[in-house]
């Protein structure tokens, strides 16, 4: 009973409470750069998911073997391996996608979410919880990327996953597919989430306040 709660908690941590994009604001570089379209965002998210889950699993399996003096070097080697694998896989699946993502696939190596998870979580937990946590984190990252990518694609090109939403006469907002657009949309989402969190807090505080009054 308790174990399932823990597992569930590990899983949801990254999706909501510690969302890497909207709460921890980590991994911004690839996020701002590749979220020009929803497809790019999803591919990037899935690539990160693969790397994060695999590297978390391997790091966690080897956690007792690795002396702490060389742990960062070990983690980086492991992460770089899986990034290379993802790099080949994306090339094999679609060259167009590979070119659209450019150097940012290789740059997953330095994505702080992955090293951060390896250091803070995977190196201290057994493989199964570590991987579940990694899956949750990556899903949170995918959600963040997709939130950015979809808005930027809708405004910047009038399409979603390449499907036209407004007809051929749509006026694209060029700024949205340029780098400033990424900052604007990210700022907008952060504003929205902090507004929501604050509103939730206020209603909760109001409810407990009423409760004490009645008691």
């Amino acid at each position, binding site marked *: 009973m308790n174990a399932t709660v823990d597992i569930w908690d590990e899983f949801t941590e990254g999706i909501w409470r510690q969302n890497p994009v909207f709460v921890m604001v980590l991994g911004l570089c690839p996020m701002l750069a590749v979220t020009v379209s929803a497809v790019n965002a999803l591919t990037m998210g899935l690539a990160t998911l693969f790397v994060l889950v695999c590297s978390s699993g391997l790091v966690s399996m080897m956690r007792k073997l690795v*002396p702490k003096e060389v742990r960062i070097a070990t983690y980086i080697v492991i992460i770089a*391996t899986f990034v290379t694998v993802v790099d080949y896989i994306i090339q094999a699946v679609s060259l167009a996608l590979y070119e659209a993502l450019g150097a940012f696939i290789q740059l997953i190596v330095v994505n702080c979410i992955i090293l951060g998870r390896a250091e803070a979580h995977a190196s201290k937990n057994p493989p199964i919880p570590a991987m579940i946590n990694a899956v949750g984190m990556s899903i949170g990252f995918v959600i963040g990327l997709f939130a950015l990518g979809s808005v930027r694609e809708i405004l910047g090109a009038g399409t979603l996953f390449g499907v036209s939403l407004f007809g051929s006469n749509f006026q694209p907002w060029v700024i949205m597919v340029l780098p400033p657009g990424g900052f604007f949309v990210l700022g907008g989402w952060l504003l929205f989430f902090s507004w929501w969190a604050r509103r939730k807090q206020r209603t909760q505080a109001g409810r407990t306040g009423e409760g004490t009054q009645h008691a």
Partner: protein
Amino acid sequence: MTSASPPTQGSIPVRPVTVVRATGPGGAQPPQKLPTAGMIRTLGLVSAICGVIIVAAYQSTYDAVAANKRIATERAVFKVIPAASSIAEYLALPSGEVALKVGAGETAASAGIRFFAAYDAHGQLAGVAAEGAAKGYADTVRIMFGYSPACQCVVGIGVVAMRETPGIGDKIITDREFLANFNALDVKLNAELSALANEVKAVKHGAKTQAWQIDAIAGATITSRAVGKAINDAAQALLPRLVPRLDALQQRSKS
């Protein structure tokens, strides 16, 4: 030095740290023993595992990646030479020779100019495609253009890579009026076959008078000019070598 006045007291706890730092990386000296053997063993193990994974991934995706690359090139060539159904990659060497490029080796690429001979369904030469590049508004614009030996003109262009402003510079892919320039853009050679008879050049929107001029897109003059320059530079370099040898390319070589 030893007289402990109030300001120096603050530095006392710092001193042992510096001592450790001085001897720490020196080797496996006291005060603590570094697990050198363990470190080497672990790193070796990790490297071995990672090496195996990478080799496996490379091997298993090699064919798919190569096929993808070939398809991408073919598609780019077919786009600029619609009649084509198969391609062969050649190098135009400085000596004037035209060599069939074999395998993925890049050895001869240093001096030769890469181009693709496109053949139609009957194995007859349908056209030649080559890449050109020039500085655009944001970054280098790389284009692929199709050359038709029959009319000695450029019959189509496609963009290989560019970072031009969306909505302005990238109209070079979509603007029908602009693309109409490349239905028959004149790139005839001069009598000595040493250079183009007329320089290919982008001119202001609405000012095209000659068959070798490109009518620029209004508002995207810089990108249009880059396309003109890319075609001109590439054609100036390639065509003088290629045209005398065209006969050798007429039939698809069985190799």
